[in-house]
């Protein structure tokens, strides 16, 4: 397959090493936070250090963005580096160096930017932990930002792996932040282990790349691709993208490794917003975008990505429709939106995928932060059946309205940024020459309607409607020294907090409100470039950012489709593809919102009636049951993998003790004892015994000598 455009070659630019500060500052801040932790600092020093460091690293990235002229490689220091010959395959180099192209900058801009904002938010949100876990929390955030920066900016796949595992560690530590709760600990463990399964795929993919190309540096790998790449369909070459995508599916919570993400909501909400919605989970998208040329070599690999993405989007959306916990709804929507990104990558529009990553980062962080504000104020209450009409409470208006912005964006309301980014993906799918991609496109549109429905189900339930709320579990507990919200709420001493009137929700202050406003504004503004210049045009800012990198659209496979598309003018529903898709997309989005409005604002009773009606009919009953129980995926995994393995391990342990050690080793040791026992009667201790033994011995010796003597005569 010929490459129509080659990947721009990176030049080595040691003079840009100041960009490395973006990596170093979070690390230093982490050390400082650890010191705060060790010195048991009671104040907010850790938060201030973190915010300053992250803001500085955001500033550095912005500066790098304006100084950007072309892809560069910035060496910092030698990490793992040795060679044993001069040949191409006789070295192993993974140095600490940066690879900066537009894709890197694109990612880093929103990672550090959102990181800073969420750190500001968290400085207020986590203040209940001052003195007990506050510094530890910001230590985790700093480790996360360091690792994420290493992941995105690293110049080789080992650096990427370093970041990849590092964000996993940060995620583990932060999900299990409230370590006294077993659920949080279990969720952290689950996240780490499920990620580790994907990581094995990534690690093997990296080895496979190294074994086949003799290098792990992006610039050298891309140079090899520019030379025509490896077009062979060799077994171990075609397996590379599949191994890499396993890693991506683990980190980005796609089928079959998605079940950890909803559980990860046990972590503090800023963590859910930053790590489990906006940045870390997009690492899989980044990996595939970065290694896109290798995926394009194998169309079936891209098709797999597309199918996994499309099906995950649908599956997660169906689960999200039936959850009652606001954060869980948003978690499933994250999985679903990540599914869209993978669908975009799979059908060949890496631009659409990356653009959707950007818009999603903003609106999903916003949504999680509003959910966090609600959780903070209502003593941990997140059940959307128990909250209603928040927009009527003064002090909660900012939360309500910014949440509306987030919901509109998530449901891809016409002429929001997410509408454009989602349509970029769906358009590519629907105009594809492959029938299965077109099918996935329609599936994506259906999922978009579901998305609009479950998103506004939350908003209509929680923010609209009559004012009514019940505080969460933390309001009742007397031993609340470990939870943030309750320490602040004035109600904590009230014994009868059960009635609504004795409970006064604790409205967010400037840090939370300010961040929500900035993010809402950001969500609006990110849409603007796309709004001004029609999104499909080549001069869109996001388009330019992606096109200048290795993730460029149409380096191979997709370009073929593009050229065919321009010839045939593909149609959607008999109309021009753009117009058709806009109409269908608007219909899906607004239709979903209207349905949500009817069931969750207009007449809330009918929602319960519908559910009851579904449950009454045996042939449809399984649908709501499965949706509410997450399609039993956790249970299936437990019975298919965990339980047999656990039983096998018990058997092995038993065999190790009783067979290998008991029978083999101890059995062997018994042989000398048995031999000894055989002769023991000879040494009974009685004199006559010894005398007879001696006589017998003499007799034996005599017999032996005489036998020799006799034989000698023969």
């Amino acid at each position: 397959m010929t490459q129509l455009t080659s990947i721009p070659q990176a030049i080595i630019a040691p003079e840009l090493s100041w960009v490395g500060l973006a990596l170093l500052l979070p690390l230093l801040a982490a050390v400082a936070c650890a010191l705060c932790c060790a010195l048991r600092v009671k104040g907010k020093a850790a938060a201030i250090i973190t915010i300053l460091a992250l803001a500085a690293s955001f500033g550095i990235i912005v500066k790098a963005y304006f100084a950007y002229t072309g892809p560069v490689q910035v060496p910092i220091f030698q990490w793992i580096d040795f060679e044993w010959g001069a040949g191409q395959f006789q070295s192993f180099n993974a140095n600490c160096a940066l690879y900066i192209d537009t894709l890197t900058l694109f990612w880093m801009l929103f990672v550090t930017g959102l990181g800073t904002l969420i750190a500001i938010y968290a400085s207020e949100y986590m203040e209940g932990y001052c003195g007990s876990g506050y510094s530890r929390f910001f230590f985790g955030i700093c480790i996360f930002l360091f690792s994420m920066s290493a992941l995105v900016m690293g110049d080789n796949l080992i650096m990427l792996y370093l970041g990849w595992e590092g964000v996993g560690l940060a995620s583990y530590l932060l999900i299990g932040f409230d370590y006294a709760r077993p659920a949080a600990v279990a969720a952290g463990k689950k996240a780490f282990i499920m990620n580790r399964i994907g990581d094995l795929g990534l690690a093997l993919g990296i080895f496979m790349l190294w074994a086949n190309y003799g290098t792990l540096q992006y610039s050298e790998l891309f140079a090899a691709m520019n030379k025509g790449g490896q077009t062979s369909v060799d077994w171990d070459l075609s397996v590379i993208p599949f191994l890499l995508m396993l890693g991506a599916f683990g980190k980005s919570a796609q089928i079959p490794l998605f079940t950890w993400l909803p559980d990860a909501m046990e972590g503090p909400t800023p963590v859910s917003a930053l790590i489990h919605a906006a940045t870390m989970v997009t690492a899989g998208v980044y990996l595939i975008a970065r290694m896109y040329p290798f995926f394009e070599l194998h169309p079936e690999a891209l098709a797999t990505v597309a199918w996994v993405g499309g099906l995950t989007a649908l599956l997660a959306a169906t689960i999200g429709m039936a959850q009652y916990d606001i954060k869980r709804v948003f978690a499933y929507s994250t999985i679903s939106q990540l599914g869209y990104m993978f669908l975009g990558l799979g059908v060949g529009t890496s631009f659409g995928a990356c653009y959707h990553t950007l818009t999603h980062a903003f609106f999903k962080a916003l949504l999680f932060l509003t959910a966090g504000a609600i959780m903070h104020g209502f003593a941990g209450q997140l059940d959307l059946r128990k909250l209603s009409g928040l927009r009527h409470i003064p002090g909660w208006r900012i939360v309500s309205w910014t949440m509306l912005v987030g919901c509109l964006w998530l449901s891809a309301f016409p002429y929001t940024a997410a509408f454009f980014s989602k349509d970029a993906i769906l358009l590519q799918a629907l105009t594809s020459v492959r029938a299965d991609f077109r099918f996935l496109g329609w599936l994506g549109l259906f999922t978009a309607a579901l998305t609009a429905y479950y998103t506004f189900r939350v908003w209509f339930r929680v923010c609209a409607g009559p004012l009514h709320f019940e505080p969460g579990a933390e309001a009742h507990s007397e031993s609340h020294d470990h939870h943030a919200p309750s320490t602040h709420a004035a109600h904590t001493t009230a014994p009868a907090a059960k009635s609504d009137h004795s409970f006064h929700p604790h409205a967010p202050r400037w840090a939370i409100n300010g961040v929500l406003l900035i993010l809402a504004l950001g969500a609006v503004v990110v849409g603007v470039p796309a709004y001004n210049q029609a999104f499909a045009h080549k001069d869109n800012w996001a388009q330019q950012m992606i096109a200048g990198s290795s993730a460029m659209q149409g380096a191979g496979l997709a370009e073929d489709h593009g050229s065919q598309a321009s010839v045939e003018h593909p149609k959607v529903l008999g109309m021009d593809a753009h117009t058709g898709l806009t109409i269908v997309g608007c219909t899906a989005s607004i239709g979903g919102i209207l349905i949500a409005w009817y069931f969750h604002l207009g007449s809330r009773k009918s929602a319960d009636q519908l559910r009851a009606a579904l449950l009454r009919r045996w042939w449809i009953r399984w649908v709501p049951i499965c949706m509410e129980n997450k399609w039993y995926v956790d249970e299936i995994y437990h019975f298919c993998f965990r339980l047999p393995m656990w039983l096998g391990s018990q058997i092995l342990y038993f065999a190790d003790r009783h067979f290998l050690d008991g029978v083999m080793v101890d059995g062997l040791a018994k042989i000398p004892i048995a031999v000894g026992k055989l002769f023991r009667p000879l040494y009974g201790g009685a004199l006559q015994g010894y005398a007879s033994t001696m006589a017998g011995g003499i007799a034996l010796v005599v017999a032996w000598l005489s036998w020799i003597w006799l034989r000698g005569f023969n």
Partner: protein
Amino acid sequence: MLLIWTSILFPILAAFAVAIGPTKSAKWTAFAGTLVSLGALTLFAWNFPAWHNAEHFPNTTGPSWIPQAGITFSVGFDTVSLLLALLSAFLMPLCIAGSFSSITERTKEYYGWFLVLGSSIILAFAARDAILFYIGYEFTLVPMTLIIAIYGGTERRVAAIKMFLYTFLGSMFMLATLLYIGWEHRLAVGAWDFDIDTLTKTTIRLPSSTQYWIFAALMVGFAVKVPLFPLHTWLPLAHDQAPTAGSVILASAMLKLGTYGNYRFALPMAPAGGAELMSVVAVLAIIAIIYASLICWVQTDAKKLVAYSSVAHLGLCMLGLFALNPVGAEGAVFYMVNHGLSTGALFLCIGMFYERYHTKDTDVVGGLAKRMPIWASFMVLFTMASIGLPGLNGFIGEVLCLGGTFISEHDGQSGYPGVLGPWYAIVAGLGLIFAAMYLLILLGKLVWGPLREPHDDAAHASSAVRLSPDINFREIAILTPLAIACIWLGLQPKPMLDAIAPCAERMLANYPKEVERLMAQSAGTPLASLNNTTNESSSE
């Protein structure tokens, strides 16, 4: 030379001083003795000329001991043995300091034997004479057996005897083989000589079938020590019963004698045997990884879990070593040091909470982050190092071992053909997932979760030294150097990798040829010649 002997003999002198001196000062005498030993070795390493130069090895001749048998007191280091000796010497004072509060009875004997243990380990690493090596190797068993049998847990006697007999039986094979090699040398040259380099030169000239048996016999001896599946069953018991410091030295230094033996004797001495048996050892190593990891998963005893994890980790180390290429060998040596650091530190951590709660059962005690936050931070760090988190030391060894296995293929683009290849790496890689599973389960029970403490006041009252709830300054001072080493080696592995590289290449010098010869034999001529031509064309 003087420095080496100082580091070997000073602990023994200190042991005498401990024996003669008052009981009160025993621990400080012992501590000082190990510090001097470490200092001498560090000074030697500081001036070591061969860090970056494979050809230059310091003078290895020593005073003759039994001239008739060609046995000498020659000691000397190459970078690998120096690193391992430094590791042992580094852990010694930490272990002694770690025993201050846990050993309250018969302290003089304890510290005396501990010093002897330290010096015999350093002797084994330093020896350039095969018999001297054997003496050091074998003599470690005596103090270790006593330490386990006197200061260990409830089944300490059984554990000590089993460890002694099992490993002693293994090393008999090794001794017999070394004597046989010496005899072969005498046949060839006319005089006995046990210098390791001389013996190596002798054996590589022996016919392949002889080398095969030499390798197999040496391998049996070292495999017990490593321990390689299925010869590992002495280890969990010994670890379980040993006192904390004994476990640390057992895991961090004594097991390394097994892998070091492979590096120093089995592999370079009998390349034909090594090349022929590489897949056998690799398969055993992979079984060890999977088998031990799965067993770890169902352990409720923290110490046993770490003990079984040692079996798995050293399986990976052996796999890297037997990939028979520089990446794997380098990774394996790196891994030896790292395993010593992180597993030793884990044993120390477990010992610290054991001293406070007198149980290692994770079902009984847990959620200690609330009670012992500083300890918990260290525990998390060392667990992560053990899992192989990049940026910490474990990762470098792991990735190199697996990478070495991965490219140990027929085509031999790396210049080092092998017979392992991707499938071996894939199966061994499952160990990475399992490692995360069992170690995080350990963390989840022990460190996180609601606080669970046994209310056993009797046990608390009986302990002579009352300990603070969280680890005290002494214990922090013990763990901090280990933590720094873990982080430093993870971030800056290059100096050490550079130091190991020439040694790894020297060890493997004969392997490409041997492996190619074997592959040509087994594959039949037409295919082999095809392979050769493709190799030549690709190299051009």
